[in-house]
């Protein structure tokens, strides 16, 4: 089955066309740009270029896999609403994947590890994984200094960014890739099951304060 993989939970604007079979996950074409401010602008063009690069058509896709964060909100929403609208317009299912799981799916190490991405405001999103890529804790959001885990190896661009504080061994997997996204969603996609709801992992409430008492304009 041809699967379109999309992720905008990190500074990477990611789109790829992946052939997904029980024994095979093969990327046919991908377009990725690192620009945290260009998700809205570039994602749909990237999707069309990836589909064209794979020698396919949008109407030939069987499913969409979409990273649902955690990630900075505005960019994350660009990817999720694009995936949801493409799925609706094409009449194909959209499968959510935790974006940290998609990074973990690309990691091959023989020990448990962390995936850490940037959450802005000097915080990180993070989750812990077993050596086989199964998530064992998280996702959480916290300041890097308070990331509470004994694990020594860490993937994700947030690990590189906050290396001075995190002080762990860096694994070279910074962003969710089409291969990682498709791998993380393979079982769900091939089962043909009704997808889970496409719910964004914001992990934080909106910043908004209820107004206090009104300020007087006259001096009493």
């Amino acid at each position, binding site marked *: 089955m041809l699967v379109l993989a999309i992720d905008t939970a990190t500074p990477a604007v990611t789109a790829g066309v992946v052939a997904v079979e029980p024994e095979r996950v093969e990327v046919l074409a991908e377009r990725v740009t690192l620009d945290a401010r260009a998700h809205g602008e570039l*994602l749909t*063009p990237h999707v069309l270029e990836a589909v064209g690069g794979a020698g396919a058509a949008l109407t030939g896709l069987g499913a969409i896999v979409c990273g649902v964060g955690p990630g900075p909100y505005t960019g994350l*929403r*660009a990817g999720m*609403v694009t*995936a949801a*609208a493409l799925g609706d317009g094409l009449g194909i299912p959209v499968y959510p994947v935790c974006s940290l799981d998609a990074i973990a799916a690309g990691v091959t190490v023989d020990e448990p590890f962390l995936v850490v991405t940037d959450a802005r405001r000097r915080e990180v999103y993070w989750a812990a994984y077993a050596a086989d890529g199964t998530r064992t804790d998280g996702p959480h959001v916290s300041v890097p200094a308070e990331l509470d885990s004994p694990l020594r190896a860490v993937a994700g661009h947030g690990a590189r960014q906050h290396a001075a504080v995190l002080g762990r061994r860096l694994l070279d997997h910074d962003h969710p890739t089409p291969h990682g996204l498709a791998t993380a969603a393979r079982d769900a996609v091939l089962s043909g099951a009704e997808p889970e709801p496409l719910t964004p992992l*914001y992990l934080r409430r909106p910043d*908004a304060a209820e107004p206090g008492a009104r300020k007087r*304009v006259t001096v009493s």
Partner: protein
Amino acid sequence: MSRIIMGIESSCDETGVGLVRLAANGTVELLADEVASSVDQHARFGGVVPEVASRAHLEAMVPTVRRAFATAGLSMSAVDAVAVTAGPGLAGALLVGVSAAKAYAAALDVPLYGVNHLAGHIAVDTLQHGPLPEPCLALLVSGGHTQLLRVDDIAGKITEIGSTVDDAAGEAYDKVARLLDLPYPGGPPIDKAAREGDPNAIAFPRGMTGPRDAKFDFSFSGLKTAVARWVEAAQARGEEVPVPDVAASFQEAVADVLTAKAVRAATESGIGTLVISGGVAANSRLSGLAADRCAEAGIELRVPRPRLCTDNGAMIAALGAHVVAAGCAPSPLHLSANPALPVSTVTVS
């Protein structure tokens, strides 16, 4: 041959999806107008919280699109073009609509038109009153905008004649409502309270009406402060605040300045039609006073029904239809939302 245009709006706190049919003779017919509003989620904050609005847009977008097609009894494959609000508006909110519109345009293999929200407020009138006489004058009054516009071509040439230098008219309503312990949004409760009050009870100032002020600009910040001072003075004297009189007198000041400037602009430029649109156009005193003054000046007044005046997808679909009919070039798929899109840009190329 008729064409079906889908319009998507997400510039503030309403997720709107409209469907219209553009007939071969250029007439535009409304087929569906579905809106999901997050206004209740903003009420306790006393104003729109951008992040709350953006989250609500993501949740509501696809369900609202589906409702629109169900209402119209159309399949998605009937769509010939997708129009979307490219700006002005809240950046994060606009981005959700623009991203969705691009994806629908790509999936359905139809052209995309990123269009101006303010022009949409004018274009929506054609759904109710038919083709716009051009040139015409438009007064846009809402929680985010207060502008006087000259429309030479709804699909291409719109010029700003004046705008507010501080608060939007609707914003002044919200702030005065809060002062009077009335709920948010402030327009409807103030309008209701004003019906029991005397509009001449208190002489609130008419902003930007001095001899040296810009003739067609507006200001509502001073008015809001004047109302606050008056209310605080009454409270300091231990008097009960006469809410109906304050509401009616405030509303009179707003409607007076808006209609006086709009009618003067029309008269001075020899324009025979005034369109009033935007959420505040639903205000009964504004439309009542405008009707009186337009009749006196011999100007045709067009005010769309309240449902069309507030933010919705039908207005964007209607504008999209006029843009398509005019043969304008579509927007590229790398279209960006522009929170400060000037009204002179009707379609983003």
